[in-house]
Each structure stands twice: as structure tokens, then as C-alpha cells.
């Protein structure tokens, strides 16, 4: 670490005003402050500083996402090899490392594309506005590849990332000013612009061979459990609950399948105090209550009859609850507001799943919808507090 510090100090003058590499000043600063906590402090007024800055928060969130990402890579390989084996009716020969390596090679280009496009735009904007590089994309950049199907084309991913960074973040003023969760805007863009690559039966399991690993097959299909339930004709035709749904060995978006891996991430987030347990808990409560109501309502569709606990473990529900709903920028900020915000996300997600057969997964839309309402919820909570205290003043007189 000491050597790196010395090296950075040595090359620093080249990036200062007038230096040869001045055009890359923001890149250098971004990298330097990512590796080392900057020593500069504010010179004016009184400031309250947290012990860690936002770059450190971002790196902790990335660490908490790693279990889900690594499992997602393994699952991409696992799904590929098991589905190909079943499709070609040949025995399953691949071992753990072969599966993981296959998934790693399938997912890595997506991560690279997302970071290159997103950070590229951030660096350009920072350089152009003569500001410090903003760190917000560190998390969005890893979230975006984790919430798309494995067969999503790279160029659409690049387009969606650029769209989300420009129209959901930069036009609102950059990191911390966005109304919508950036990663979810990218997903929503993909979902509505290229629906054939974001839903259906041919995108969830990779059907190509990568670097000699795996096997290229044509016409292989695999639906997600929610996809099966939404197209089922009979009321009890939803997939039966199985432990694979909890461990995550089912087709789905890359990072969303494993409840256990997401749970590890949730523990890290809660233990370090970055995410709010109130939001997280109330999302699950909201989902469970509404799904329970649908179970009891007697509506005869498979989605409505799917048990509430199955609703909670399938699709993006856990991933959204842990990593998206708790996003400190776009969620409600008052403590009471967090309960309302989270509850409504869970409730809306199940309502969309059950009542709209066109959208088997409602988590993305429900979080985006509640992002809009978060400031209103905060406003109401604060007004209520103000009027309560005003009343106390007037009765004491």
C-alpha cells in the first residue's frame, strides 16, 4: 500500500493544471480517492463528518453484492450445463469449476460493459464540469449486470446503461440527486425497449458455448418459475415450492436467484449500518400480507394461489428488497416513512404480479413507482410531526 501511495504521489503533478495528462485529472482523482481516504477537509463553516465517506459506503455495498454475484456466475453455468444435458439427453459431465468458469466468462463482459459505459460518462461529465468524479456508479455498475437475463445482448446493455446514467442521474444533478434508482431505470429501459431479450423463455439460460466451454444448442427454452405461474391455465399449476428456489439453482436474472447469497449481503449491509432494517423488513411484510390476502381471496389464477412464502423467495423480490429498496438516495428518509415506503413496495410488487399477466415480475415497477412517492411520504410524515408538536404548544398555553 505504501508503494502505491508513493507512486500516486510521484505521478500526481502530471494531472495537475498544466500537466501533460491534465485531461485525465478526474480519472486520477477518482482512482486516488477510491484507494485512499482523502486528507482534505472543508475550510469554511462548521461541518459534521461521518467516519466513512460515500466511496467507503459504496465499496461496502459492492462487497455485500459479491456473494450474490459469485453465486449468480455459478448458477449461469449450472443452468447451462443441466439444461443442455436435459435438452440433448446426454449425461451431465461438467463439474463445479467448469460451471463456475463458464458463468464467469458469460457474466464478465456484462460487468465490463456496464462499468466502461457508465464510468466513461461519469468521467466525461466530471471533466467537463471540472468537478470531482462522483462515486455513485460503483454500485449501479455492478447492479445492472446482476438484474438482467444472461442472454441480454451487450449492446442493449450499453445503451440502457448510458440512458440510465444520463437521463436518470446526470440531468438531475449527479450522484445523490437522482429521483429513480439508476440500475432499475436501466432495467426498465431494457424491459420496455427490447422485451424479447428481457422476458419470455429463451433468455434465461445461456445456449452458447464460450471459449470452448459448454455447448451451442438451438431452440432450448427455459421459463422462470414466475413465468410458468403467470402463463399457467389452471389455478394450482404454479411450480411447487422447492429448496432450489431458496438456494437459487433456478433460471432467473443473474444475481437475483439465490435467497441465501442475498441474505449474506443483507447481513453485511445491516451489520455495517448502511441499509435500513426498517425498509427491508417492511418490504417483506408488505409482500407477505398482500400475497396472503390473494391466497385467501379465491381468485382462480396460479399467481394468486401461489403461497405467500413462495412469492417472497421467487423472482427479484429478495434482491429488490435488500439492495434496491434500501438505496439511501431514492428511498424515504424519515424513520416512519421507511415503514410505509417499504410496505407499499412489497404490496405493489405482488399486486402487479398477480393482477397484470403481462408482467410476471412486479418488483422493478413497484420500486420505481415508490421512488416517485418517497418524497411525498417524507413530506406527510414531517407535516404530521409538525402539526402534532404545534398542538402540544397550543394546549400548553
Amino acid at each position, binding site marked *: 500500500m505504501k508503494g502505491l501511495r508513493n507512486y500516486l504521489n510521484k505521478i500526481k503533478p502530471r494531472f495537475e493544471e498544466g500537466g501533460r495528462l491534465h485531461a485525465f485529472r478526474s480519472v486520477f482523482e477518482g482512482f486516488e480517492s477510491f484507494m485512499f481516504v482523502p486528507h482534505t477537509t472543508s475550510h469554511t463553516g462548521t461541518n459534521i463528518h461521518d467516519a466513512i465517506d460515500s466511496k467507503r459506503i459504496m465499496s461496502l455495498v459492492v462487497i455485500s453484492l459479491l456473494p450474490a454475484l459469485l453465486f449468480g456466475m455459478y448458477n449461469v453455468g449450472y443452468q447451462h450445463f443441466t439444461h443442455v444435458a436435459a435438452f440433448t439427453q446426454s449425461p451431465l459431465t461438467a463439474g463445479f469449476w467448469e460451471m463456475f468458469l463458464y458463468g464467469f466468462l458469460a457474466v464478465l463482459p456484462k460487468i465490463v460493459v456496464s462499468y466502461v459505459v457508465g464510468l466513461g460518462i461519469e468521467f466525461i461529465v466530471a471533466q467537463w464540469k471540472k468537478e470531482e468524479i462522483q462515486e455513485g456508479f460503483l454500485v449501479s455498475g455492478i447492479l445492472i449486470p446482476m438484474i438482467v437475463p444472461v442472454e441480454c*445482448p451487450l449492446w442493449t446493455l450499453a445503451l440502457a446503461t448510458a440512458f440510465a446514467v444520463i437521463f436518470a442521474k446526470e440531468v438531475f444533478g449527479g450522484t445523490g440527486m437522482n429521483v429513480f434508482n439508476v440500475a432499475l431505470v436501466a432495467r426498465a429501459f431494457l424491459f420496455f*425497449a*427490447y*422485451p*424479447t*431479450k428481457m422476458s419470455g423463455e429463451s433468455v434465461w439460460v445461456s445456449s452458447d458455448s464460450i471459449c470452448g466451454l459448454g455447448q451451442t444448442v438451438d431452440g432450448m427454452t427455459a421459463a422462470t418459475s414466475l413465468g410458468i405461474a403467470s402463463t399457467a391455465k389452471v389455478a394450482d399449476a404454479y411450480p411447487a415450492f422447492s429448496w432450489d428456489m431458496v438456494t437459487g439453482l433456478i433460471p432467473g436474472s443473474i444475481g437475483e436467484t439465490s435467497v441465501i447469497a442475498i441474505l449474506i449481503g443483507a447481513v453485511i449491509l445491516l451489520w455495517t449500518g448502511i441499509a435500513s432494517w426498517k425498509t427491508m423488513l417492511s418490504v417483506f411484510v408488505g409482500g407477505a400480507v398482500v400475497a396472503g390476502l390473494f391466497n385467501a381471496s379465491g381468485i382462480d389464477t396460479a399467481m394468486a394461489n401461489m403461497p405467500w412464502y413462495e412469492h417472497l423467495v421467487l423472482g427479484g423480490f429478495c434482491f429488490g428488497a435488500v439492495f434496491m429498496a434500501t438505496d439511501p438516495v431514492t428511498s424515504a428518509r424519515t424513520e416512519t416513512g421507511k415503514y410505509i415506503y417499504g410496505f407499499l413496495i412489497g404490496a405493489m410488487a405482488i399486486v402487479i404480479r398477480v393482477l397484470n399477466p403481462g408482467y410476471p415480475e412486479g418488483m422493478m415497477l413497484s420500486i420505481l413507482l415508490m421512488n416517485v412517492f418517497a418524497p411525498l411520504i417524507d413530506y406527510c410524515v414531517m407535516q404530521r410531526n409538525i402539526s402534532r408538536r404545534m398542538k402540544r404548544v397550543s394546549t400548553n398555553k
Partner: protein
Amino acid sequence: MSQLFSKKNREVLTSPVGMNNPVTVQVLGICSALAVTAKLEPAIVMGLSVMVITAFSNVIISLIRHSIPNRIRIIVQLVVVAALVTIVSEILKAYAYDVSVQLSVYIGLIITNCILMGRLEAFAMSNAPWPSFLDGIGNGLGYAIILIVVGFFRELLGSGAILGHTVIPQAFYDAGYLNNGLMLMPPMALIMLACIIWWQRSRHKELQDK
């Protein structure tokens, strides 16, 4: 003739196309700009219809501006606009039935277009017929141009076609290119419009808000 196109009159005609555009600067008529621009053809027809109606309602109101009682001027203006809208709507039904079906209620809803009432109130009520006519043409043109630009990009990126003719070669689709379905939905019209406004304001410092 030189009188007819004096400097002032020329400005009346050209300023709404650029620096005083009714859509991008005054932000009027957004509703129809979102609704009819998924394809280029209805966007052109809509733009032309609005141009014709704005021009002629401006002329008519300007001609009778001295005899309109001030208290009922809005209702008089509405009657004139409604009559013109009905005529345009009937003409479209007779000669361009397919487009009129695509535009559906939006031709009838020109009557509620803020640009029309705005021009009648702000210009025709206090100016002679000829400048009013130019003002109507200019504002209609400013509206039409924005609609056509938005419609062009939405049809090109959303359906890979221009005026119904496919222009994106099959080789692109074979290579994995896909039409952007979001372009056909109204939100994208709003974003296209925002991009035009963005481009215009970044070029002209005087349009930027303080």
C-alpha cells in the same frame, strides 16, 4: 411587396420557428406532441393541420377584432377555431382517411391546443390580418417542425422505417440489431422533446433560466 415582408413581418414569421418556438420555448401543445409522433406521417399531417388552423383563425379574429365585445371574446375565438377544426377534420376524412383514423381524437382536440388560443389572445386581437396570418403560419411551422423531428426519430428507431418504408437494412437485424420498443411509447416522445430543448438551450445562452 416589400411592405408585406418588412423586417418586422419577417421576424413575426421566423421567430416562432426558432428562438420563440411554441413547443420548445413556451412549452405549449405538449400533449398532442406526445400522442401523434409515434410515426412520421401523422406527425406531418398534424403539424400541417395546426398550421392551417392557426393561420386562418388568426386572420378571421384579426379581421373582426374591433367588433368583438371584450367580455365574450374567448367564446367567439372558440367558435372560429371549432369551425376551422371541423372543416379540417372533414377534409382529412374525405381525402386522407387512414391518417385521420390514426390521428383519431387528436384532430378534434386541436381546439384545446394552447398554441391556438395563445396566438389569438396575444397576437391576433391586437394586430392587422396580414401580420396575424404570418404569425399563425410561423407558430404552426414551429410546432410542425418539432413534431416532425420527434416523429422522424421515433419512427426510425422504434419501427426502423420512415413514412412506412423500412430503411434499416435486413443485415442489421441479422447482426442482432433490434427496434427500440420504448420509442413507440409516449414517455420517449417526452424525452426526445427534452433533448431538443436541451440542445436548443445549450446553444442559446439567452434561453437559459437564471
